[in-house]
């Protein structure tokens, strides 16, 4: 195969490259999502505000008041114009003359238009501008505007507090919901998707409620109000002004669709550039070591160029909307100015009404273009709401049926009898598992990945509810206990060493919140944490951040052990780490886990021979069932699955015969290493 084909391949995969949501987020926007069930979701969104009905009624009332005043004010202000205009005309006429005489005089001279105009204007010959009247009108108008502004402010103030209350409750509901959802919910979904439902989507809802709601009401009322006023002032001019309406709708439609398409292209290309940047920067050492710089650079330039073309297009077309809309509004302004001028000149209308009308026509276009924006915001808000509602509607864990309680300290005898578990009825994950763990004993669970080891211990915790059989803890069926009661008796140390963003002390204290500083330190000492913590400049106050720069992976693991130690549980579940931590820390982790296991019934998901050998009972699992159990020596002697597993770790050739899955081999890679390192001492 030659060069050409390989570049062709590169191109074809590029086209398939789909930017992930996060990447799009990074590029400053996501394509608007559409709600699946728009109206039901809208209804439910409003349902969230049901408890705020009074507030909402107030808000609507205030908006109505404010809009009515704002809409009437220009008409009143037009009267001020009339006063000025009449004053001017009046000043030009001889004082004391009769206005009717002047009009008939004008007609006699053939100046019919002028006569008509005088007839409509309220002119007193010889008198200038009536400043008392003008002043009164201006004060009235200002008062109207002042009240309108205050009403507008008041509704905003009320709505803001109201929406924030609703959003606060929504966030609260979501958090509660997270705590009530079964683990399965999280296991079966992408973490990023759940995260974005509880964060971005809620932000989106907040925005939609805060802005879209009041603007929608306001814009709609304003459009109606101004429309009515325009018809009152002059129906002919109003019809003229209405021409602008379909015109702007058509322009918005054409440019809008076009720009949406172009924006989609821009998003796609942004994703491609970002993906390439991400990839080449994260793998920079490989790119260099393989002398791939130039090829990557060419590819970058190609994608960068396409992004430029796409985004320049998108920005241009979307940028056209504003001037085009403005053009329409200027157009109607000109039409109204001309038509209005003609009407005033012929006395069919006063100048004040004409200026009022011009103002109306200007204010008319603004809420229309706002409505377009609101519609977008609303659409994305409703889509977000729908996603959030999906989360809120998800099935919860069955409520506890508490019949029994455990004493603070319990011996820890665990019996599985015929325990079965399946997610969906077709595929059994655990089938009729029975065994007993005696108080203080260590039970090691071994087997290939996917055999159900983790599922088994999760059943003890009631992270999943069994679908058959019984799990009995010291004579009590665990289903008769509350989950909290059961879990507070079980300590758990997991492979992924989860710590929250806080100090080391806080993280250890997580095990028992009311522990004193001394107890925290004692737990740290018992689990080898104290030693390395004292070497840190901030000691126990060292903050563990998300990427955990200050402590290594092994040290994180130790802290989780200290946390479990402090909790002092009756029962213990340990999932041994497979990740290769550095050897010295690993010794510490082993010691700490050993300290933790003392005098407690322990379930250990084992990856190391050492644990397996010392365990009182070893459960060998395959395909959700226990195929063998017994002590190390017994099982070796039996020459069954365990024997094969054990031997395969010494002689690699056998491994694949019994455990063909790729993944299995990897999880057991550590055990493999052990086997290898041990052999020199054996020989």
């Amino acid at each position, binding site marked *: 195969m030659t060069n050409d084909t390989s570049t062709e391949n590169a191109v074809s995969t590029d086209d398939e490259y789909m930017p992930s949501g996060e990447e799009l987020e990074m590029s400053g926007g996501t394509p608007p999502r559409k709600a699946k069930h728009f109206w039901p979701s809208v209804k439910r969104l409003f349902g969230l505000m049901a408890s705020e009905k009074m507030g909402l009624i107030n808000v609507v009332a205030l908006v109505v008041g404010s809009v009515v005043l704002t809409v009437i004010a220009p008409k009143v202000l037009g009267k001020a114009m009339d006063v000025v205009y009449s004053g001017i005309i009046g000043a030009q006429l001889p004082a004391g003359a009769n206005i009717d005489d002047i009009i008939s005089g004008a007609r006699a001279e053939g100046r019919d238009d002028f006569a008509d105009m005088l007839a409509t204007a309220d002119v007193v010959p010889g008198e200038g501008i009536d400043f008392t009247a003008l002043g009164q009108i201006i004060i009235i108008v200002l008062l109207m505007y002042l009240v309108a502004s205050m009403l507008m402010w008041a509704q905003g103030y009320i709505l803001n507090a109201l929406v924030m209350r609703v959003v606060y409750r929504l966030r609260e509901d979501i958090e509660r919901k997270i705590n009530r959802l079964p683990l399965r919910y999280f296991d079966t979904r992408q973490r990023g998707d759940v995260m974005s439902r509880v964060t971005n989507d809620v932000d989106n809802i907040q925005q939609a409620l805060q802005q879209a709601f009041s603007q929608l009401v306001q814009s709609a009322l304003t459009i109606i109000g101004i429309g009515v006023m325009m018809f009152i002032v002059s129906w002919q001019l109003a019809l003229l002004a209405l021409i602008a309406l379909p015109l702007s709708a058509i322009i918005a439609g054409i440019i809008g669709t076009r720009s949406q398409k172009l924006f989609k292209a821009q998003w796609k290309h942004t994703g491609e550039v970002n993906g390439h940047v991400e990839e080449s920067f994260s793998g920079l050492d490989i790119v260099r070591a393989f002398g791939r710089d130039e090829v990557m650079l060419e590819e970058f330039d190609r994608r960068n160029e396409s992004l430029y073309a796409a985004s320049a297009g998108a920005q241009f077309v979307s940028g056209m909307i504003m001037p085009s809309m403005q053009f329409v509004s200027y157009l109607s302004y000109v039409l109204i100015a001309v038509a209005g001028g003609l009407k005033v000149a012929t006395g069919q209308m006063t100048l004040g009404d004409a200026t009022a009308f011009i103002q109306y026509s200007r204010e008319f276009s603004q809420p229309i273009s706002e409505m377009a924006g609101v519609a977008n915001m609303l659409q994305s808000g409703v889509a977000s709401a729908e996603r959030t509602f999906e989360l809120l509607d998800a099935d919860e864990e069955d409520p506890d049926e508490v019949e029994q309680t455990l004493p603070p300290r319990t011996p820890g005898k665990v019996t599985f009898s015929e325990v079965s578990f399946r997610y969906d009825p077709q595929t059994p994950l655990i089938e009729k598992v029975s065994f007993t763990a005696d108080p203080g004993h260590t039970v090691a669970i071994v087997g290939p990945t996917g055999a159900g080891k983790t599922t088994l211990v999760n059943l003890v915790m009631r992270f999943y509810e069994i679908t058959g059989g019984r799990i009995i803890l010291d004579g009590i069926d665990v289903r008769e206990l509350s989950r909290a009661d059961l879990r507070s008796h079980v300590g758990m140390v997991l492979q992924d060493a989860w710590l929250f963003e806080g100090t080391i002390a806080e993280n250890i204290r997580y095990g028992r919140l009311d522990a004193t500083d001394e107890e925290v330190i004692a737990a740290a000492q018992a689990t080898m944490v104290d030693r390395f913590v004292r070497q840190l400049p901030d000691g126990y106050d060292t903050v563990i951040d998300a990427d955990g720069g200050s402590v290594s992976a092994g040290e994180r693991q130790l802290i989780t052990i200290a946390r479990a130690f402090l909790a002092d549980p009756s029962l213990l579940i340990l999932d041994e780490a497979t990740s290769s931590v*550095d050897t010295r820390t690993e010794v510490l982790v082993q010691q700490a886990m050993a300290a933790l296991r003392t005098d407690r019934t322990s379930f250990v998901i084992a990856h190391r021979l050492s644990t397996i050998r010392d365990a009182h009972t070893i459960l060998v699992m395959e395909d959700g069932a226990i195929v063998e159990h017994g002590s190390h020596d017994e099982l070796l002697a039996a020459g069954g699955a365990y024997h094969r597993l054990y031997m395969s770790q010494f002689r690699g050739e056998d491994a694949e015969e019994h455990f063909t899955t790729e993944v299995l081999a990897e999880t057991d890679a550590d055990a493999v290493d052990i086997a290898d390192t041990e052999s020199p001492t054996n020989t």
Partner: protein
Amino acid sequence: MALLRLSLKYAKDYWLFIILVVILQLAATIAALYLPSLNARIIDEGVAKGDTDFIWSTGMTMLLVCFVQVVTAIAAIYFGARTGMGVGRDLRRAIYRQVDELSMLEVGKFGSATLITRNTNDVQQVQMLVLMTLNFMVSTPIMCIGGIIMALREDVGLSWLVWVAVPVLFVVVAILVYLLMPLFRRMQDQVDDINGVLREQITGIRVIRAFVREPFETDRYADANRALTETSVKVGNLFVLMFPAIMMILHLATAAVLWFGGHRVDAGQMEVGSLTAFLQYLLQILVAVMMGVFMMMMIPRAVVCAERIAEILDARTTMTIPEGVDELPRRGELEFRNVTFGYPGAEVPVLEGLNFTAEPGTTTAIIGSTGAGKSTIVNLIPRLIDPQIGEILIDGIPVSAFNRHQLARLIGLVPQKPYLFSGTIATNLRFGNEDATDEELWEALRVAQADDFVSEKEDQLEQGVAQGGTNYSGGQRQRLCIARALTVKPQIYVFDDSFSALDVATDSRLRAALSESTEEATVIVVAQRVSTIREADQIIVLEAGKIVGRGTHEELAESNPTYRAIVESQLTAEEVN
């Protein structure tokens, strides 16, 4: 000032476009400003005198002006978009090239995550600011100045109203923005906080439930929620003040124009048409001022982004790439001669006075605990970093004499983190050798024990690989990375802890196949575990950047205390219970 510097530098190439934008915006603004003046004449000369013909003809002129306005405005947008997006493209290109120039040491100082953000998100911010500036900020001063001139033309006596109204509006809006900005920032932080708590709740769900810490988490969340809600309410309350306040100022200005203008008209100092025109100009000026202030809100954010971009572009690289040598070495003997490497500013060097030679046809293993300097050695060989003192030589030629292509042909690196690139298996394998035939690829896969799972799938060599190779398991990725290095057919192989994810069966088969196909090559293996390197011809024991022992496994196990300590620590880890 980075923003200004960057924009000036990168906008320079678009000077023609920018001048066009300014001219076109000027034309558009003048046209927009001309309309009220024409309208004034309709009133004064047409309406007041009853001259309908004049009204018609002026109306036609107005239409023409409208048309000019829309055409120039759209043209300005066109060039603005080209310029803004062009600046973005050029910035991205410059950053990408700059990163390509930097040594891995300098890249490491930034971290690839921030480099990615800077070349994507930060550039986006700067590019949007340039676009907005050209689309709106250019027209704002023109509108202001033009509006003032036109207003003064209509009537000088009323001009004081402009001097009062503009500053009042500016001050009111500026105060609100000034109050809002820190609140906005705090709100953003609190949004991050609350999302952080939620993220922890979801990632740590098993731990939280295991310890029954739901109430604790709920409290933590409630605190964050309360703080966020409080700030949001404050922000909202300021926000709802903004619009009514601005509207009130506009209405007050209107009233003032009517009142004072009325007096001037009455006194014959002004015509009534001028009065309406003046009013429109004043409103246009005020709207422009408002837009200007809002636009300025974008600046602080873009400034931060520009600074972060400038930081990369200003970074000086210490690594120069030579033309290369005329003929590539044939043997592949690798020598470290008195190599010392330390991070700038660090007290203790990572590697100190390293001397060793790796012969073709032999395997040299390097062992030591974390922090001993093993990865640094790996990075020095393909010249991802340069040593401060000493040289790394291939057949006696310093690695700094080769260009990147030549080094890539000489060295096959299998990294610790098995990273693959999006594409297909074939494109990934050909990463270091574009000309490899399909047969050669299959051969490499066979040696790397990866042929089975590649041939299993229908698409064979053409099956897709996701970014990072995440659609393959750790062990598969590791084997593909080995095959990638094999495809290069280099003189020197460097394996950096590259067998950790393999099971024993595969591992032993792989080693057998490898030793056959790398028989004549120089092989360097870096390892953490003794088991991986026992058969090496030469083992180099590294501690705190220095060689503390070299020899075979048996020799070292016998005599070297550090080596013994490593062996024992790995045994005690198992034997501790």
